[in-house]
């Protein structure tokens, strides 16, 4: 029996070898595609990315052109989303702002998630004093008022867009760290982790290949939600002088400039609000699809 089977396998092996990785991705894509909502989410995200790229081409008006005579106009045929408190075309501003808000959102969440996940995994996996030290630092970070942190960053690094991303990213570190640690604590005791340890895997392998994929789902949720918070808090920081300065059409800033007109000209806050929520919606749905596609038990 034995030689026969082995022979067969080697033959098979030759033609299959190269395509294995590609096939893996294909299977993943296939699964992903089957989830209609996820696909919609993906398209929304893609749509925004395209907007970001082509904003200058498709914007109907100059996003910076102030026209105080026509301020606070409700949506008209000239201004599909109306004008803001300085008479600028909201649609054009939103379009131009896509790039800014998208990149601030992305980069800062990515940055925060990256460090937070590292910290959380390390703390959760090693436990003991490593956990103590990391988590106490995280506690401190959590307790630190955002504005103080932002002021510190400006005075240390100066006001720039990258630093906003850093600042907002730093705010998210503790969130990710704590979520990841919590889940790591419960996963690291599972028997399959013992199994891979018994094989002599390095801690690195255990942490990143075995624990991480199994705690991904709360991370995805947190990351997709953090995006909204990141865009909003980036705007808060621009008022402190960190990051994009007016008249940059940052979505968050546009939204808060609507604060004074919530009742007299609600569209000022409404459209940026819709833009942010649709983007976040897209991301969440996309994230859900991703999670499902990554979960073998969801395989159809």
């Amino acid at each position, binding site marked *: *029996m*034995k030689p026969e*089977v*082995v022979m*067969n*396998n*080697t033959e*098979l*092996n030759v033609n*299959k*070898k190269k395509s*294995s990785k590609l096939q893996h991705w294909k*299977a993943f894509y296939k699964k992903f595609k089957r989830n209609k909502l996820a696909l919609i989410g993906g398209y929304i995200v893609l749509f925004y990315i395209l907007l970001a790229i082509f904003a200058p081409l498709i914007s109907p008006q100059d996003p910076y052109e102030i026209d105080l005579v026509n301020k606070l106009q409700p949506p008209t045929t000239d201004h599909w989303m109306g004008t803001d408190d300085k008479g600028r075309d909201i649609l054009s501003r939103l379009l131009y702002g896509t790039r800014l808000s998208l990149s601030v959102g992305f980069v800062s969440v990515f940055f925060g998630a990256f460090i937070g996940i590292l910290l959380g995994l390390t703390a959760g996996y090693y436990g003991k004093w490593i956990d103590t030290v990391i988590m106490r630092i995280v506690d401190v970070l959590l307790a630190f008022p955002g504005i103080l942190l932002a002021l510190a960053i400006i005075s240390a690094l100066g006001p720039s867009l990258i630093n906003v991303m850093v600042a907002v990213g730093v705010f998210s570190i503790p969130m990710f760290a704590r979520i990841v640690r919590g889940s790591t604590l419960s996963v690291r005791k*599972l*028997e*399959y982790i*013992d*199994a*891979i*340890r*018994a*094989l*002599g*895997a*390095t*801690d690195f*392998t255990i942490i990143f*290949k*075995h624990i991480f*994929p*199994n705690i991904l789902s709360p991370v995805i949720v947190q990351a997709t939600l953090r995006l909204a918070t990141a865009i909003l808090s980036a705007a808060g920081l621009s008022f402190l002088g960190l990051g994009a300065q007016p008249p940059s059409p940052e979505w968050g800033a546009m939204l808060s400039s609507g604060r004074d007109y919530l009742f007299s000209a609600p569209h000022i806050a409404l459209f940026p609000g819709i833009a942010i929520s649709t983007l976040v919606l897209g991301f969440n749905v996309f994230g859900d699809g991703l999670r499902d596609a*990554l*979960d*073998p*038990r969801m*395989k159809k």
Partner: protein
Amino acid sequence: MVLPVVEKKVLLKVNQLKQYFPIKGGFFGRTINHVKAVDDISFNIYQGETLSIVGESGCGKSTTGRAILRLDEPTSGSIHFQDKDLLSLGKKEMRSTRKDLQVIFQDPFASLNPRQTIGQILGEALYIQNVVPKENRKSRIEELLGHVGLRPESMERYPHEFSGGQRQRIGIARALAVDPKLIICDEAVSALDVSIQAQVLNLLKSLQRQFDLTFLFISHDLGVVRHISDRVMVMYLGKIVEIADKKSIFEQPQHPYTRALLSAIPVPNPVQERERILLTGDVPSPIDPPSGCRFHTRCPFAIDICKSQLPELKISAQNHQVACHIVS
């Protein structure tokens, strides 16, 4: 088949191993008691042999295995593998030593990462200990799957898509993947149908012959134990009660517990109906084990001394040790 004593090389030496698990209670989870899962056991495993552990469920077999692998840190005792004291090895040394020490887990499904395909699981084992060059990994995986009777397509599938027995075979393949010296087989074949079981047992035996492998074989199936072992160790409530050559133990079991155990084997053979020694009395618990001989509460032959004094493991015949006051 029985090798002369002098030629046996000790591969693993377990000395006074103890493994206690705390039992927590109350709101603050104070430790209120201990499960004495393994309570001061010593034994050797010789190179190239199969030592089986049998015994009542919960008597500490798996725990012994886990302790040897340092999956739980033992409470006390020492474990020497090829003259290395495993318990004092550093992280890195321990990692490389793990290549030589493998385990097939009792619960196959729980021990497979649900997010990895079988190919990834086995590939990873090969990768971690770097046993075969990268190009050959895939063919090696297919070979391993073939050994345990799984089809090569299985590589692309995930653990939950397999039946219980198939999962167990994946576990076996993983243990074999790294060419270990010692494999701890914790109920490795219990979920397999007899034909696959036969296939796997044959494979294990032939590998043993070929590579001088050593097995610590934990099983309840005495037929299997009898087939595969060189020596058999019987545990009861965290203690070794008897340890002997296979022949000796199956033909002349000396400890009353061993005898009861052997008599309870169900046999699919209408001709061979046998008399059963039924054990009576409550099964004691490792949380508060009985004094003296731990078996005395159920032993039909118990005498006074059994209640108060712990019998030591003593040689009772050639290659046969037993812990019983009555026997000695």
